[in-house]
């Protein structure tokens, strides 16, 4: 039996995750009215969306590659990346709701940023429905790749452009149009950057695992 050796970037992921979780809960944060300790959610909420966007973008890239090369492995990559991205999007919603409950007093308000994000995730859930409907492998690959590219195009204005045109409660939208990472306290910057990179690495790790599971399943199905 050969010994399983952890790759270097996986060790890095674990170390960075430890740092962001421990630092996220313990490193002092600025005392702000209303926000109080809920500001720590920033360390976990923001990285979820970064991870989701990174994986959506990777999925977009894979879909484009699939259309160019007709190599079915790209289709697998696009589908798996989308699945993981969807999972992180769901976590982003949940963490955001917890934070909203602490600061705004409700889990959900009719805010453009919140609603549009929910719609955006709905767009991507239709992708899985589409895959379920199509039987033929190459056809499924081609059509779902087209839908993926198309929905990325609708997703970006929905999440990043429209909320900025209206008033929004959400930090970073409405009246304060830029992402205020550069204004934050020095301590927070350290943890936020680490958390973002560590969660993106974690997302990529999930992705590789699911991809391997998928190809093993394929081999298994072919053998039977």
């Amino acid at each position: 039996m050969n010994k399983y050796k952890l790759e270097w970037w996986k060790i890095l992921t674990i170390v960075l995750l430890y740092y962001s979780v421990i630092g996220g809960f313990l490193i002092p944060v600025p005392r702000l009215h209303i926000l109080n300790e809920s500001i720590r959610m920033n360390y976990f909420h923001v990285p979820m969306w970064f991870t989701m966007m990174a994986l959506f973008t990777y999925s977009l890239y894979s879909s484009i590659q699939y259309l160019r090369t007709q190599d079915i492995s790209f289709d697998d990559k696009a589908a798996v990346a989308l699945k993981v991205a969807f999972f992180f999007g769901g976590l982003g919603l949940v963490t955001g709701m917890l934070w909203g409950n602490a600061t705004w007093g409700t889990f959900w308000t009719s805010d453009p940023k919140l609603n549009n994000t929910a719609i955006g995730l709905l767009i991507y859930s239709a992708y899985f429905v589409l895959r379920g409907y199509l039987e033929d492998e190459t056809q499924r690959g081609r059509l779902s790749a087209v839908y993926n590219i198309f929905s990325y195009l609708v997703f970006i204005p929905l999440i990043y452009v429209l909320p900025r045109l209206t008033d929004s409660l959400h930090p970073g939208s409405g009246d304060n149009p830029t992402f205020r990472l550069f204004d934050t306290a020095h301590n927070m910057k350290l943890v936020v950057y680490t958390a973002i990179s560590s969660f993106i690495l974690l997302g990529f790790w999930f992705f590789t695992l699911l991809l391997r599971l998928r190809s093993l399943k394929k081999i298994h199905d072919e053998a039977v």
Partner: protein
Amino acid sequence: MYNSQKKNLQTLKHLFLKELTLELRRKSVISGLLLYLFSTAFICYLTFSLRQNQITPLVWSALFWITILFTTINTIAKSFIGEKKGRDIYYFSIASPEAIIISKIIYNFLLTVILSFTGFLLFALLLKNPIADLGLFCLIITLASMGFAASLTLLSGIASKASNSHILMTVLSFPIVISVLLITVKVTKNCIDGLDRSVSTNDIITLLAINCAVTAASYLLFPYIWRS
């Protein structure tokens, strides 16, 4: 170069005219859609005639856009789903996929605009007309039709390849058209309130940008759907 462009334009024109002739030849489809529109508007009228004062401008706007959305999805869904099986092979042999998608988008745009304005007329007749800024509202109907036509035509092409295509069409199209709808609903509210047009300029530019992006994406992506 110039010749090929001219040829493409000519194919486009022929394909567009073909759609139009086919539509006019079997009037059942278009009259069915008009009937659909009319009965929806009439149901709204009957329901609210029980208590006239309850139809506030916002209720009007919601009913109007729901009606238009459903009619449009039904209209555009048929552009690929309704095609007979062997016919697409024939089209493929005589025209480029780009010409086909653009001609279909233009044709669907025309059809949607006609249906939307008919819907507006019906709503203004049966219910009342709460729109203060008519010019802007007409512009927004036209732009929304453009957005619907551009995004739904491609989705109709995708859905037509699957079994149960009508359900799939609905599932795929609702989330996609919402970004267009969000802007139109917002601008409709501005039209109802009769706000100054400068308030809506940003929204209209965004809508126009989304339309352009979606049309470009359809143009680029359609050849890949076509191949199967």
